[in-house]
């Protein structure tokens, strides 16, 4: 099991977008991938080209057929994430709450820090999306309540909505790479195509396959694969 958490201490930084596209890219690379939307907004599905009214399979509800889009099995995890018994299971020492050899991408709302804390011991990596704006940069102090950012080992920061025509945006990228180089897992350029694809209820890769953000996501996923040891696992599975 490889659990990759997407959670940012700042909302509105594209966490769900990055989680969705990370899951799609991992699936395209041959990893068996499932994505769980733990947020109440339930917008992860939109990046897969689904309609807002489309209900995902609720995690823990076996009465519906599985939904697989772009190679990713999708779950609505809002109820499960709030369930007392699930949280108790996560908190249990030595528990293995994800008995699977698949890659699990979890999208967690920024306010749900408690769930993030409970899932962290089971995660291979915590991806922290931020944007090059002061409020998001300032929120970096809240990535982990107990450990300073530079001491976090299984954490990867991704700079989203990078706009290199803007001075602060460029300088933020240089600053983050210099100050927290080992934590950085890439940057994804600001791309109007993303919103336009969602507004058309189409996956970005289908409507705008040349979108710059997709190329950036591919690079980011290579970094994440390396950090999670997924390359090694894939090589072992082949041999």
């Amino acid at each position, binding site marked *: 099991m490889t659990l990759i958490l997407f959670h940012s201490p700042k909302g509105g930084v594209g966490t769900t977008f990055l989680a969705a596209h990370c899951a799609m890219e991992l699936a395209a690379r041959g990893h*068996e991938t*499932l994505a769980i939307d733990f947020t109440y907004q339930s917008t992860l599905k939109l990046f897969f080209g689904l309609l807002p009214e489309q209900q995902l*399979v609720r*995690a*823990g*509800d*076996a009465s519906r057929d*599985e939904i*697989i889009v772009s*190679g990713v099995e999708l*779950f609505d995890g809002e*109820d*499960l994430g709030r*369930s*007392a*018994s*699930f949280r108790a*299971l996560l908190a249990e020492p030595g528990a293995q*709450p*994800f*008995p*699977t*050899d*698949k890659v*699990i991408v979890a999208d967690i709302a920024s306010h749900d820090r408690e769930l993030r804390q409970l899932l962290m011991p089971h995660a291979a990596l915590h991806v922290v999306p931020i944007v090059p704006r*002061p409020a998001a*940069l*300032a929120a*970096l*102090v*809240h990535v982990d309540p107990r450990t*300073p*950012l*530079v*001491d976090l080992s299984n954490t990867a920061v991704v700079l989203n909505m990078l706009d*290199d*025509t803007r001075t*602060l945006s*460029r*300088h*933020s990228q*240089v*600053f983050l790479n*210099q*100050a927290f180089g080992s934590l950085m897992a890439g940057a994804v*350029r600001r791309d109007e195509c993303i919103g*336009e694809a969602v507004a058309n209820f189409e996956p970005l890769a289908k*409507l*705008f*396959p*040349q979108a*710059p953000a997709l190329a950036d996501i591919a690079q980011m996923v290579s970094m994440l694969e390396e950090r999670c040891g997924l390359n090694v696992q894939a090589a072992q599975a082949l041999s």
Partner: protein
Amino acid sequence: MAVRNDVESLLSRLGRQDLRYREFADQLGDMELWPIFEALLQDPRIVGRAQTLLDQRRETQLEQMRLERAARARAELEAQAAAELPVPAAAPTPPPRTPATPVTGPLQSMDAQVRTFLGQIGSKGPRA
């Protein structure tokens, strides 16, 4: 590839097939140290707290003092409890036992939900 209409007409006016994004990369030397960056670099929640040997010594001493105080308080409580211990009496009669009622309600359904979820995500082998 679907290209937006406005982009397509711009490209055709320019006589080009695709659009190359211009890179505006800055060198480190060109970067100004914005106060927000400086604040982050000085925040202990980002960079931790640099400890001197004296700091470490202070922390060790404080921890040792705290442990000693806790041990002393525990010993005092134990001594007090031993002094107040009543003479052992005959064991009380246990209350009559009633059969346990099965657990119902949300907790039970949550447990089933978690169990089902664990089954849902279980490996099913390679997908067709």
